[in-house]
């Protein structure tokens, strides 16, 4: 009975202490934020610096996912151009086209005879006069085929080989090379984005670390008094860690704004360009997950910078 009462009292004491601890955290968090708002210009500068530093890799990331989307949009309409041998006449060409229509891997087949190929070339190249000077039509007949959608690059390569092995075909060209180049470019861009992100993350940590160092210096008296009346290291650290967190989260928000505004500025020209190519393509934004990730990494970098400053400078301040 007495034991149970004792246990109950102990429990409620622990509850009180936990509640006090939570209230204290809330207050320190609020207080640190209010301190930042009390010096709006210098805080805004710090937020903007961090924002720009985070926006650079974030924009690169957005650019890359858009390039990838562009490549995928084209991927589904890969085409193969089969250039026939010069000695293959139109009738044999047509027959081959007919045969290819029955091929299960192809969805569309179009035959262009040598005369049409020449006419088309004359129309788009503007070399009409030169062509008139030639005795003979230099262009081969052409069969354009569209493979079924969703074939992998590897599969497309196999198809290309099979078609170029046909006796009538001189060469089979996959109109996919630029897509592959695009992918290579995206790969390179990803490397660049990661390197850039790592460098700028280091920059953010140093900027926040230095800002926190100044904050520590300006609150030296307070730190001394807190240590004198029995404040633990954790207690002394806390406001500075929250300050770092707010710098980071605010910087993440700035970065998101920078990216959103750049996308908005670019969306008009991109839509016009896509319109010229008859495409529905439009720019993708950061998306929810990446936005949260941006804030989270801002917050973590802020904390890391603050930790660095606190670890280096708080130990030096002791009551004398």
């Amino acid at each position: 009975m007495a034991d149970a009462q004792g246990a109950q009292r102990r429990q409620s004491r622990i509850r009180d202490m936990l509640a006090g601890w939570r209230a204290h955290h809330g207050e320190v968090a609020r207080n640190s934020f209010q301190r930042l708002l009390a010096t709006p210009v210098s805080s805004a500068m710090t937020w903007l610096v961090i924002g720009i530093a985070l926006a650079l890799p974030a924009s690169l990331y957005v650019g890359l996912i858009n390039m990838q989307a562009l490549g995928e949009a084209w991927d589904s309409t890969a085409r193969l151009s089969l250039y026939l041998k010069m000695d293959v006449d139109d009738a044999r060409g047509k027959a081959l086209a007919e045969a290819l229509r029955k091929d299960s891997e192809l969805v569309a087949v179009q035959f262009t005879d040598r005369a049409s190929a020449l006419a088309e070339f004359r129309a788009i190249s503007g070399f009409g006069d030169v062509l008139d000077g030639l005795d003979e039509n230099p262009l081969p007949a052409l069969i354009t085929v569209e493979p079924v959608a969703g074939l992998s690059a590897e599969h497309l390569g196999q198809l290309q080989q099979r078609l170029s092995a046909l006796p009538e075909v001189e060469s089979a060209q996959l109109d996919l090379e630029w897509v592959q180049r695009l992918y290579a470019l995206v790969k390179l861009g990803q490397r660049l984005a990661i390197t850039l992100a790592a460098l700028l993350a280091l920059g953010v940590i140093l900027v926040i670390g230095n800002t926190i160092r100044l904050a520590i210096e300006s609150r030296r008296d307070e730190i001394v008094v807190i240590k004198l009346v029995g404040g633990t290291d954790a207690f002394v650290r806390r406001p500075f860690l929250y300050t770092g967190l707010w710098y980071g989260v605010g910087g993440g928000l700035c970065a998101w704004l920078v990216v959103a505004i750049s996308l908005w500025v670019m969306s008009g020209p991109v839509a016009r360009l896509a319109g010229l190519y008859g495409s529905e393509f439009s720019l993708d934004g950061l998306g929810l997950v990446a936005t949260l990730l941006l804030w989270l990494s801002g917050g973590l970098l802020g904390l890391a910078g603050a930790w660095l400053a606190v670890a280096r400078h708080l130990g030096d301040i002791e009551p004398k």
Partner: protein
Amino acid sequence: MAMIRFDSVSKRYPEGHEALSRASFEIDEGQMVFLTGHSGAGKSTLLKLVMLMERPSQGQVFVNGQNLRNIGRLKIPFLRRQIGVVFQNHQLLFDRTVFDNVALPLIISGCPHQEIGRRVRAALDKVGLLDKERNNPITLSGGEQQRVGIARAVVNKPPLLLADEPTGNLDPQLAAEVMGLFQQFNQVGVTVLIASHDIALIKSLSYPIMSLKGGQVTRQPATEAEVPFDG
């Protein structure tokens, strides 16, 4: 039981001067003792050793039953929570109110929110500054600031109170008031150690005196027989 015990304690600062040399003494729980000595005799050094603001070069210090040798850096805050300190330059923070200054030790020790207000007002009431709780300490007189410092030192109800030249900047009447406060705390059981070179003031009160000379502590009995110093 001894609240403070020095066992052959020496303190040599890196620059070479020996502030304490093999000093030994005891202060019992519930006593009020003055520590005197000329400027530079080592009074502040002795108090700093009690609070672990400095560590002895030799010998052992015991406070409230703990051998300070066993208290590592991380445990120092918990020792300091058992000790209230008052300084000549009172170490108040001028970026917050009197209330917030006094509340600091309570917030640090995780005191429940409702209790903070009650305890801070009780401490301010004791030093007669209840009506100044919302003021910034910079607007207060020197004597009032010193009383805010005292309220902060006792708000946590520490068993031990240290004061380093607490009346150094005060005129005789204010100094006597401040001493009266220390006497009141001592009457409710707090052990009090006051370093001061104000011989006139000390002599006017009947408490035991320890004097520091050549790094050694010598004890004199109370000037009047009311409060005997045994040790």
